[in-house]
């Protein structure tokens, strides 16, 4: 979900309230028709045009000037280890309890439900972070800033080392799952928690793979993407194209078609707008901070 180091807890779609419904004219993309206004320079174009299109002044993400910021530190590895430990503990405890009670189907089904709902959860969180709040938002401000960086330089997630990429989610998972491991003795609940939290924690890796290219990904990963078990590269690429309001789920992507076809997020956006006056970013043309920097892509990206 992000490129920059993540901080803050895993889940909250909190956003700063902007007060009553705004009355000033806002810029809204008119999707059904063309307008006479020329597309703004910040609107992303297909990658094939990147080399010949000058959309913005050339900027390089700061972390590329300091490649060590993409590397894993021992702190990152420690948090990933903690997160994995709690997830595996939950899984192991669930398996043991299931074996003792000779009742495997329940926990297995619960685990599957956890995997399915993790995809939905990833989409809801992603939608919230992409559309509301900013760097100053309490708790998730850093996440929002990180998402902003990812939208600006999406390909750099493939440069980030494993623990560097996952450590923030792993930290949240470790804190949330440990109490469950210690206090819960229900095989089904533990099975659900194991798969749900594990998929959430590894969603950043799935996300990174979704930004990879077929030739450079392990065959098993490609197979899982093509089977729909992990979010596909094509599906996630659609999220990074105009109008930037779809394909938010990044575990398996199974929910994307349903959510997009039924305009679930659009409905939520309308409800939040009329109820709280919150206007989502996806209703307007993306600002430069959220638009892919094609010059950086063209000049610094190695074919991934």
């Amino acid at each position, binding site marked *: 979900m992000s490129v920059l180091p993540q901080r803050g807890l895993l889940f909250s779609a909190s956003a700063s309230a902007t007060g009553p419904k705004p*009355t000033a*004219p806002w810029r809204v993309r008119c999707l059904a028709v063309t307008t006479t206004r020329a597309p703004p320079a910040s609107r992303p174009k297909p990658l094939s045009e990147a080399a010949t299109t000058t959309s913005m002044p050339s900027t390089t993400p700061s972390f590329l000037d300091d490649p060590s910021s993409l590397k894993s530190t021992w702190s990152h590895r420690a948090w990933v280890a903690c997160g994995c430990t709690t997830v595996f503990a939950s899984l192991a405890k669930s398996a043991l309890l299931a074996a003792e009670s000779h009742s495997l189907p329940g926990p297995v089904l619960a685990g599957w439900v956890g995997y399915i709902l993790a995809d939905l959860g990833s989409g809801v969180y992603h939608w919230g972070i992409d559309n509301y709040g900013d760097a100053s938002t309490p708790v998730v401000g850093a996440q929002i800033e990180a998402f902003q960086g990812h939208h600006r330089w999406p390909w750099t997630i493939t440069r980030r080392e494993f623990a560097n990429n996952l450590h923030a989610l792993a930290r949240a998972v470790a804190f949330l799952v440990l109490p469950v491991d210690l206090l819960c003795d229900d095989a089904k609940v533990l099975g659900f928690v194991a798969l749900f939290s594990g998929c959430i924690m590894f969603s950043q890796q799935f996300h990174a793979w979704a930004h990879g290219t077929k030739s450079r990904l392990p065959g098993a990963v490609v197979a899982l993407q093509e089977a729909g078990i992990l979010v596909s590269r094509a599906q996630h690429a659609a999220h990074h194209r105009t109008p930037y309001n779809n394909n938010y789920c990044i575990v398996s992507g199974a929910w994307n078609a349903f959510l997009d076809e*039924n*305009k679930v997020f*659009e409905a939520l956006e*309308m*409800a939040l*707008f009329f*109820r709280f006056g919150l206007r989502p970013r996806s209703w307007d043309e993306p600002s430069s901070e959220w638009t892919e920097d094609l010059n950086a892509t063209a000049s610094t990206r190695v074919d991934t």
Partner: protein
Amino acid sequence: MATLSLPCKHFLPSLLSHNNPKVRSSQASLQLSKSSRSQFHGLRLSSPPSPALPSSSPAKRSIFAKVNKGQVPPSFTLKDQDGKPVSLSKFKGKPVVVYFYPADETPGCTKQACAFRDSYEKFKKAGAEVVGISGDDSSSHKAFAKKYRLPFTLLSDEGNKIRKEWGVPADLFGTLPGRQTYVLDKKGIVQLVYNNQFQPEKHIDETLKLLQSL
């Protein structure tokens, strides 16, 4: 006379039907419970028309009003985008498309307005006028109309009084003003009521289809 009903294709409508009791308590008339079920993106009308209420009805009594096909809707006078009062009676003698939409500068409403704009010549050819109504004020309408070069009238239904009088159902358990379009014939009688919140372009298709049959 065409009666429009659309199949409910999406999962969401079952959650968002305005027959939700909460919405019903604020908007439904006694007749609604007897009428055909209103769909999220289509309206099936098969009940006998209820008598139109006088336009001077107090807001409290408007919860019992609902404009159905075959009725003459309550008249209104609202300000347009230039702040000038416009009455429904002004359009008598020609077909009128009155479309209620949630708000200016929202994605669905922008799509809908632009779609009406792009098909405006067809509406003119059919001799019809197009009037959009939302709760936004005149200045919002003016900016919206200017930005998207809308050639038709936008009226400001401040307080959503007319929306309530006409019985436009809300969506999402009452949180979202409904998107409903009425087509009135030359005599001012409603010939079509079409409701579809998240497929705004369909309002243009359905209204044109009816106008061409009038």
